[in-house]
């Protein structure tokens, strides 16, 4: 994009943070309400894709120097291992547990192992979406 896109760039700088926050919010709310790792991951990756569209690939790579293919593989592995952990502990594969903990700032908080699984899903989605977009863009 060689046109004068000052407005797009300025807006993006702000909007990316809104999208990222919204993505995290969706991810966390997924435990009891609509949302979760898949949708959260999609929203998070849309922020990255917006960055790639507005700025060029090299610039974004300086800020986010990850191999997204590896992120996808890592995410899938995290999900799988969280299920395997249950099997190692003698429960059926993919069993999840939760408990209430008194944390310093948050107060009484529910912590669940399914969050680990969902985090893996989110990472897989981010990695896959960005990889797809990047490989499409390279051909042109």
């Amino acid at each position, binding site marked *: 994009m060689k046109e004068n896109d000052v407005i797009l760039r300025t807006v993006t700088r702000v909007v990316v943070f809104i999208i990222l926050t919204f993505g995290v919010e969706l991810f966390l709310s997924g435990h009891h309400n609509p949302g979760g790792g898949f949708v959260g991951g999609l929203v998070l990756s849309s922020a990255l894709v917006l960055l790639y569209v507005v700025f060029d690939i090299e610039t974004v790579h300086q800020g986010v120097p990850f191999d997204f*293919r*590896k992120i996808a*593989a*890592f995410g*899938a*592995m995290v999900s*799988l*291992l969280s*299920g*395997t952990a*249950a*099997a190692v502990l003698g*429960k*059926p*594969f*993919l*069993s*999840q547990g939760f408990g209430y903990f008194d944390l310093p700032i948050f107060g009484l908080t529910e912590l669940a192992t399914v969050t680990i699984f969902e985090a893996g899903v989110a990472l897989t989605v981010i990695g896959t979406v960005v990889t797809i977009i990047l490989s499409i863009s390279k051909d042109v």
Partner: protein
Amino acid sequence: MNNVLVLPMLIPLLTGFVLLFLRPSIRAQKMISILSLLSLVAVSVRILLIIRGEGIIRLDFGGWEPPFGILFVGDSFSALMVLTASVVSALIIAYSFTATERRMENMFFYPFAFFLVAGVNGSFLTGDMFNLFVCFEVMLLASYVLITLGGGKVRLAESMKYIAINVVSSWFFLVALAFLYGTVGTLNMAHISVRVAEVGQGPLLSAISVVFLIVFALKAGLFLYFWLPGSYSSPPGPIAALFAALLTKVGVYALFRTFTLMFYHDEFIIMTIIGTMAVVTLIGGCLGAIAYTDIRQIASYNVIIAVGFMMIGLAIFNEEAFKGSVFYLIHDMVIKALLFLIVGAMVYLTGKTKITGMSGLIRNYPVLGWLLFLTTLGLAGVPPLSGFIGKMYIGLGAVEGGNYFLLFAGFASSLVVLYSMLRIFMNCFWGETIINREDQRPYPARRLIPIALLGILTVGIGVGAQALEPFVSDAARVMANPGLYIDAVLGEVES
């Protein structure tokens, strides 16, 4: 609860992910692959023995009991399939260590081979229709990568066909699942079977079962096999062998599961429609196997003939015939891997694909030649090789059920198989040697070992059929009595 049941899918998946991170070091990838394949085979044997001791076992993921949760069910049929698939894929991947180009290894060949194995094993073990769809997709996505890997004009064209046909059939699968869920309100296979039996298999459910028939027939190459010869003959040896040994067999397995466990009420669909499709498949496969002179095409048409033959066992629909089909499935996985590896080796060694272009190879590569002869005999079903037992039991079942036409079609196809294979053997290995000893490409022993092991395996299955018999009988008994499967899955909970 038997967590061991998830391992045949978990081990290849985890291995695949680990290998993705080890991209720079092919050596490390190979080491880990070997370890993982050995443990996969060990686990499969263990599952088979557990089932022998305890009967059908199941694993409810996350402790969610059926019919609400997703589960893996292990009966003798699925365990035998998992064991055979694991052994065969181990040998094929061992072969590919020495036969794969470096640039393909760099483009994640091994991880995707493992994902394919994971999808195949998952499809065999799952007890849930939607999960079957998911496992199919895992397997197919991996196969899309493997078939396009390396590029080339012909291969890309064939891959496009392959991907298009599979995407369409996956869509049909999804539609059938939606219909089924809308009608009986469950996706657990055992629960579906109970509900279908309760309401009777009316026109609506029969229509749904026909959609499933079309989907699995496309995947298995039953009647709808037009895509198969092209896409199985274009990739290099090891990949073609993986496809021929595993992919269509998963479709055959799914057909058996669907029509023996869930939709076994409608005789017309099973006897007439599937029977006709099987015979047409046999005829079409035979025509192709005789007509082509490209050895890869001939091998691909042999895959189709075998699918037709196994489906005769389903159309006859009695315990004896099921037994034959299970034996034949085991045999076919081994022998098709063997056949495609040898064919791949012949193409690699001579650089030619037509039978008219090769001659007198027996002087150059005697071991390979005799292995091909062994394969020929095995495919034709000459005793004591592995093909014989399956054909014998299907024959017995046909006589018992009075299906003499199917019997005739099946055994006539064996003669055509024999002829088509002997044509390869006589044209390529007999005759005047056209490659000088000095010019011949060396064939390393490391490559011959996996092929020879497969050859030994096909003899072993034939000679050691007595040891396999109890497992196969159990598999056939469960297919003939779906109640056993249902009891094992839903026995402890309210259905």
